């Protein structure tokens, strides 16, 4: 065997000019990499999937009304069932993006966190290294929180330790067992991840890469998480921290009201970009202003004629009121973090914790940018109860179709608001009772091995 052995080396070394190991380590495809460098890990964060959030929490809300039973019948079974709060949503259909895509993003975050174990942190890459780690923790926490809004019961400190939350996956090992953590553990993990991320993420967010997490965004998200837990003192502190770093509001008077897309993708209020899964059918109809849908007329009428949001958010037609989409300039439904929401969070949590002065000031600051110049009369001297009521009305009006309604309904009903949602369709009436089990959606049928939600 001596002859071929020699000849082999001749062929390999002379002919191709490399060693066996080099030859066998050639990258088989230019599109494939083993993520080992900061830019390769950053690319995972920059995937548009990472900035998508579930649709079920929006399609279950009263943000939209289907006026035409025929349009309803033409929708997918999942959209139909969701709309009428049916017991079963999926009709046996698995591969649901509301679940799969969120966990796909969790996996990507875990891959980043695991791969950072092999990327040395040194003086030259320290800030990038910290940034990517913070971003991965942020995204994982964000996806966990979004999943918890859909598939776990609302946070209730009295029952959270026993309530079933979501599957909190902290490793990229796909062989790790799949379990459901308690609601308490779910939220603890979210908060822990976010708190760590705030120490790693940069204080300034990039106005170019609004899809990337930043420290103000992480504070804003912490505020949102604590608000959803009805932990108003912490919500206040984090909202305040976020606004300390970034508090720019956009004056609606500087944009024209007649354009079909009044916001741009450089909307200065956006702290962190995310939107509902782009492929969702019913929301596609809604944002493309297809007939058969309308916005609740009472909600539309509640905007004052001087309130520019009425023009920025809606296109009224004789029979229907259409939505204008795209708080962040694109046509998808924005669910990310923005300063207007942070002002409202600080205002509400201040009001709920007795800090009326901050509450009223934040409310007035925000609304001054929403009304036609010179038409807004700042609120003064409201009683705490009235102030909270005004803040909540403005929250509804400001954060319309921003993916927050479902979480708010769950929270308000826990606060005792007793909101009953009603749908009327083709002669049938459907209702969703406060604090009902139907406020958590069933887990898709192909997710096996973990307990299903009671409905």
């Amino acid at each position: 065997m001596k002859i071929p052995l020699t000849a082999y080396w001749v062929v390999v070394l002379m002919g191709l000019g490399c060693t066996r190991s080099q030859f066998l380590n050639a990258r088989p495809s230019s599109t494939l990499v083993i993520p080992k460098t900061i830019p390769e890990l950053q690319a995972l964060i920059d995937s548009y999937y990472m900035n998508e959030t579930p649709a079920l929490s929006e399609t279950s809300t009263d943000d939209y009304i289907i006026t035409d039973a025929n349009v309803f019948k033409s929708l997918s079974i999942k959209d139909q069932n969701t709309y009428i709060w049916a017991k079963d949503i999926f009709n046996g259909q698995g591969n649901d993006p509301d679940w799969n895509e969120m966990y796909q993003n969790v996996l990507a975050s875990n891959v980043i966190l695991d791969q950072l174990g092999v990327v040395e942190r040194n003086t030259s890459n320290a800030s990038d290294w910290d940034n990517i780690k913070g971003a991965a923790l942020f995204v994982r926490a964000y996806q966990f929180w979004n999943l918890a809004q859909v598939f776990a019961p609302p946070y209730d400190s009295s029952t959270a330790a026993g309530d079933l939350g979501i599957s909190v996956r902290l490793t990229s090992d796909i062989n790790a067992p799949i379990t459901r953590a308690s609601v308490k553990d779910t939220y603890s993990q979210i908060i822990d991840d976010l708190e760590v991320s705030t120490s790693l993420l940069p204080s300034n967010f990039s106005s170019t890469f609004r899809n990337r997490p930043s420290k103000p965004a992480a504070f804003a998200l912490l505020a949102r998480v604590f608000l959803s837990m009805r932990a108003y003192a912490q919500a206040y502190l984090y909202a305040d921290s976020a606004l300390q770093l970034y508090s720019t509001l956009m004056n609606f008077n500087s944009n024209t009201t007649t354009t079909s897309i009044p916001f741009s993708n450089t909307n200065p209020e956006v702290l962190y970009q995310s939107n509902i899964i782009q492929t969702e059918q019913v929301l596609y109809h809604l944002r493309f202003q297809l007939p058969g849908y309308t916005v609740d007329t009472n909600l539309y009428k509640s905007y004052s004629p001087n309130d520019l949001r009425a023009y920025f958010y809606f296109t009224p037609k004789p029979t229907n009121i259409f939505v204008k989409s795209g708080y962040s300039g694109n046509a998808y439904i924005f669910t990310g973090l923005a300063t207007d929401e942070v002002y409202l969070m600080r205002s509400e949590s201040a009001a709920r914790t007795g800090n009326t002065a901050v509450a009223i000031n934040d409310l007035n600051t925000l609304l001054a940018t929403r009304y036609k110049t010179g038409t807004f009369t700042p609120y003064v001297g409201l009683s705490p109860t009235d102030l909270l009521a005004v803040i909540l009305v403005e929250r509804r009006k400001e954060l319309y179709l921003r993916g927050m309604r479902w979480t708010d309904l769950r929270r308000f009903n826990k606060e005792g608001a007793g909101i009953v949602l009603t749908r009327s369709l083709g002669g049938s009436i459907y209702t969703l009772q406060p604090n009902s089990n139907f406020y958590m959606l069933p887990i898709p049928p192909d997710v096996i091995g973990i307990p299903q939600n009671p409905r």
Partner: protein
Amino acid sequence: MHAQTITLTVNNVSLDSVFARIQEQSPYHFVYTSEELTGTRKVSFSVQKAPIEAVLGLTFKNQPVDYSTEEKYIYVRKRQENKVENGPPAALIEVHGKVVDAEGRPVPGVTVSVKGSPRKAATNENGEFDLKADENAELIFTSVNMETSEVRVARRTRLEVSLRPKVTALGGVTVEYSSGYEKRRTSQTPGSVDVVSNAVINRSVTTDILTRLDGVVSGLTFTKNVSPTSSLNQSTFSIRGRSTIFSNPNPLIIVDNFPYDGDINNINPNDVETISVLKDAVTASVWGSFSGNGVVVITMKKGKNNQPIRISVNSNLTVGQKPNFNYGRGISPSSYVDLETYFYNNGFFTSSIGNPSTPISPVVDILNRQKLGVLSSADATAQLNLLRSHDIRTDLAKYFYQPSVGQQYALNVTGGGADDKYFMSAGFDKDASNLVRNGYNRITISANNTYSPFKSKLELLIGIAFTQSTTRNNNPGNPGTIFSYTSLADAHGNALPIAINRLSYVDTAGQGLLLDWHDRPLDELRGADNTTKLTDYRINAGIKYKIIAGLDLNVLYQYSRGNSVNDNLHSQQSFYTRDLINRFTQINFATKAVTRPLPIGGILDEFNSGYFSHDGRVQVDYRHTWSERHELNALAGYEIRDIESEYRGYRLYGYDPDLQASGLVDYMDLFPVYYNTAIRGQIPSNLSNLKTINHYLSYFANASYTYDRRYILSGSVRRDESNIFGVRTNQKGVPLWSLGAAWNVSAEKFYHFESIPYLKIRVTNGYNGNVNSSVSAATTEFIGAPNIYGGTQGVISSPPNPDLRWERGKSPINPTTGISSFTGNTANMRGKGFDVTINTKNTVGKVKWYTTILFSFQKDKVTQYKATQTTISPYLITGTLNPLPGHSLYSVYALPYGGLDSVGDPQGFVNGKLSKNYSAIINSTDFSTLKYMGPVSPTFFGSFCNTVAFKQLSLSFNIKYAFGHYFWRPTTLYSSVINGTSFGAPDFSKRWQKPGDEKTTKVEAMTYPPNSAKESYFTSTDFFVDRGDNIRLQDLQLSYDLTKLGHSRLPFSNIRVYLYARNLGILWKANHDGIDPDFIPGTSYPLIFPTPRSVSGGIKVDF
């Protein structure tokens, strides 16, 4: 001697040519060496029905050679003085001989024994043997596949003996095969291999080579119903069924020595000598991890030593019918109008009508205008009736399809001297497809030369093959998603617009400031300019050195390079271009200012793909025969392969083909879309680029040992390494092995079954792998296009799983892990089957009748699958791969059907009771409710080929059959029919329409709204499962040969005129729904037709 008569006219023809002509007309065979013919003179004579002795007398008259006959052999030898008969015992002399077949190829493995003596020898790979024999001894040549013959030594020390195969029918036994590493005899391997002879390859007329294997190799299946876009991972042809679930299902194709990396259509069938099909582990495993699906070795033509120049010209013309537009019709246009009316009346279209830019069908438009009062009821009915009367298939048949015409011209030049041989060829093919304006042109040029100096101790080989082709792909075969009553042209053939956009909208949109926004498919076809130009070449070099007797060193190298450029020019006039420009146009109606982010002009899409490959091999061959009973063949070597491909695509806007100018556009910004300003979009850039590298290193050895021609033991080991992604170098390889043993029962002395003259029993075992280097064992990330902020996007394409190496399967996984399908070792499959090839010669006499029967049985079974679904519904969906242990990988599962109830709803079963709880039925977790119907692929199949020859006239026809498989008959899915994405099926007319119909029909009623669970159940019932069994007349060939021997004034040695008809049609089928199971009608575009019949006429001239 046989009372055979000869009719022959020769004029100044060399002796060997005369021998050949006599051989053709008689059972005799000439035994001679070219040495003996030196100094012979050319002969001329003409005889009519003369006895053979007379003809031989004329042939050998005044020649320096004489002849003697022994049975059917005519021995030629130099004239010499008669020896004294009773002289002293003759001395033993050393005889060196060579045994060749009728085509001059060496026949190894022939036993050469001395009559009345125990001395024996066997021929080696080169057909050579050495034997000591009495100088007057008679040598007996016996072989499994060749007719036995006896030759007198007659004091010659060098002999060349030509043997005839035992059966010379179509598909007859051609016993030498090539594995790509070596040439072997089928008798020397315990494995299973089929060799397709040159005669069989040339029997059919096609542009490509693979099609010519259809129906001529047992165990080889061609699956016609494979959709290239399907996720079923099916191969269009497979050897012995299926051996992989998720990896590459295609057999490996070798051209001469190396895997073929180019497009297989680049191979001109006229340049192919033989094709060897290696079917089992023992024969295929020499290719290691590439061979899991079997190996097809294409051996290209080479020259022959000591042969004067031969020129062969072949030309033919093939004309194919238009497809049968009556096949697989959907709902009739009139029924379609009714169906849409029914859905309209139920309000289905309210939403689309309300949105002015959503397309609505002509019927809906008419009904809507009637409702709005714009159209009177009478006018509406008249317009609808006009639609009812027209079928789009009429227009498609008239404007989109045509009879196909194929022309083929091939020139071969071959020859050789004592130490060199050469082959050159040129070919030109020009095909006009069934689709108007589509076609294919190909030029192939090849040459190879072998030079063997130093008494053949060294052999140098060099070859080059060049292909250039142009494919015109202007006709997609369909005008897109439109309705069955659509007219594509008016009475004068002028293109008509279709309702892909709402006509009333595009008529008025933009107040004349937009470009014409109508889509006229016929104009699109007429204006399309989509061509792919391919250039491909291959250079081979090889050195073979005989180190010592039996030991050869081979060094082979091949370089291939190919490039294909697809240019698709959407001209300014095309709808594609006008639509895209309009889509992004913004108009200020006050100032009439038009802003166009896209420049006016054409759009050129160019897609380049190129590859190059280096293949190198160093190999040592060893052959040794000793004690006349022991025979050893072994080889070992290294191989290195490097295949690199690059793909690049780009687009030019505002393209002017004359000036070669184009415009700049802004790909980054979002622009509002004209028809719905709520939408903003980016201008599509069509930029793409990809580079792939495949590196392989292989180490291989195999050996076979034969004892006494009866017992064969063979084994191989191989290790393949590749640049598989994400594992350490020392884990990049896979060791593979095979072992086989065979017992040649018919060679035993006790064996006396005349009816089965050849019987071999074999046992083989092996471990074959499969290559799938597109997936990785480590965490891998797929890098994609930038996001809207300009950041490069990456997604996890493969999760961390370090256990993964070469063998893989893919399975669904709990999506909570972050991936919804996973590639790992999850499944086991087992295949079993057997192939039988029977060649018979049915008559003796002037009319010769040969039959070749191919019969294959094959069944694959998934034995273990870790990812079985929880409910039965995934198994009811066609188009997804869901293996169920215990059944074939591709199986038809259905639900029992309980017929219709009194309102026309289908009824299934829940807990054995009739039920309409469709959701419960299709989502049942009880797998016993799932009815296994059978496999999708035939379990019994083969062909029956008959050849009848009378003198120079030969007629053959091949009948193919396939049994034991099942398919889904298409039906009407209202939900997709109403969206215009399906034509439905003709069973619409048999649907339940009024109470009582349930007694006569099983087709559900049309109901509103479409209930997806109901449709899922109904279309999954066993009512729609048909048996696939069928018998078809594959082809028919008629040929007439005219030889120079019969007509000495002809300027050529042989001329063959042939007629070949293909796809003649189905003779019998099990289903009664008019469906050809090889071409299951689709319910949407592209239309599916049985391959139309074609007839070829051709002429082949050998000079």
